[in-house]
């Protein structure tokens, strides 16, 4: 059997042939023992592989995995408005550059006024990333209530892989 014929038998099993071609191949497989053997091998292999994709679970806790995604989303959303304002005229850009901090300040004052009379302490968190190209990962495990701040520096951060720091968030 030549390669073209072998590929045709495979395409027949994968339902990739036209009706005429499929009928031709079916006739061949019915009469040719070699074609039959190949078709049987491919058929059983297809069924076997299709139903058995290796099942894997993410080797990180839900919170830790999510904390990295959340940070990346927050980072990308911080970058987006900056690039949007790049095309504005200088006056608009100037107005926008002032509008945001003023609005932010106003919002902050409003929030302070709202929360000031409460007796309970608000959740508060602020972390400095280390210098020289390091970073920090911050997450909370809801089951135990434990908060973890994980610092890494440029020299080494083997959270999952001792040879690479590519798998953790880079500092901004």
């Amino acid at each position: 059997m030549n390669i073209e014929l072998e590929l045709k038998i495979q395409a027949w099993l994968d339902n990739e042939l036209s009706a005429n071609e499929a009928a031709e191949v079916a006739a061949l497989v019915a009469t040719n023992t070699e074609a039959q053997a190949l078709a049987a091998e491919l058929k059983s292999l297809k069924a076997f592989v299709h139903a058995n994709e290796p099942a894997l679970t993410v080797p990180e806790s839900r919170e830790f995995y999510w904390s990295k995604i959340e940070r990346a989303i927050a980072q990308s959303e911080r970058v987006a408005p900056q690039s949007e304002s790049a095309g504005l005229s200088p006056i608009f850009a100037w107005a926008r550059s002032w509008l945001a901090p003023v609005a932010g300040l106003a919002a902050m004052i409003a929030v302070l006024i709202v929360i000031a009379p409460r007796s309970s302490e608000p959740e508060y968190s602020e972390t400095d990333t280390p210098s020289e190209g390091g970073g920090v990962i911050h997450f909370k495990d809801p089951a135990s209530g434990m908060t973890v701040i994980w610092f890494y520096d440029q020299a080494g951060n083997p959270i999952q892989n001792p040879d690479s720091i590519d798998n953790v968030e880079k500092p901004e």
Partner: protein
Amino acid sequence: MARRLDLKTAEDQALVRVAQRGNMPAFEELISRHRDKLYARAFSMLRNEEEALDVSQEAWVKGWQRLKQFQGEAGFATWMTRIVINLCLDHLRKKKRQQTESLEELDEEWGGAERRMPFLVVNPTEGLERIELRKRIDRALVQLSEAHRQVLVLYEFEEMDYKQIAKVTHCSIGTVMSRLFYARRRLAALLMSLKKERDSE
């Protein structure tokens, strides 16, 4: 008054609708439901834990950014796995650019030694438990070349047809067919040798 959505019991579609309005907890719930599947698909393509983790997380970020474009023609998980597959292919392309194609790879393109191998008459998966089957598949997938594994994963797991695979892998339908054929024949041979190993133990 609008009823509050119970994230744990809500269907994917409902969570997507809420997440499309910027609700992050709904999106997190979607991640927790489908993260293993996405990671497993990335791992099948890349065969590297770190890379699969990075790419799957990048896919979730992309998913969030493009969530408004999701119209619900396919299921959310299917939509997300397409994003992860595209990222895996980009990742492999970038890696490939750094490597030169070897003669061995060219030989693999056309079938190599396995093409001339006799067809199997014994089912190499006979009498195996599901866990054992999956382990064997996993071990055999490692030994396939990147190009052949890619096509096999896209066809068997991602359920793409020849035309779709040719489009995403930037090659001809003929190449997809020969790669798929070689991958299957090699996989059959690998499974057979694993069966022999097990039988002799």
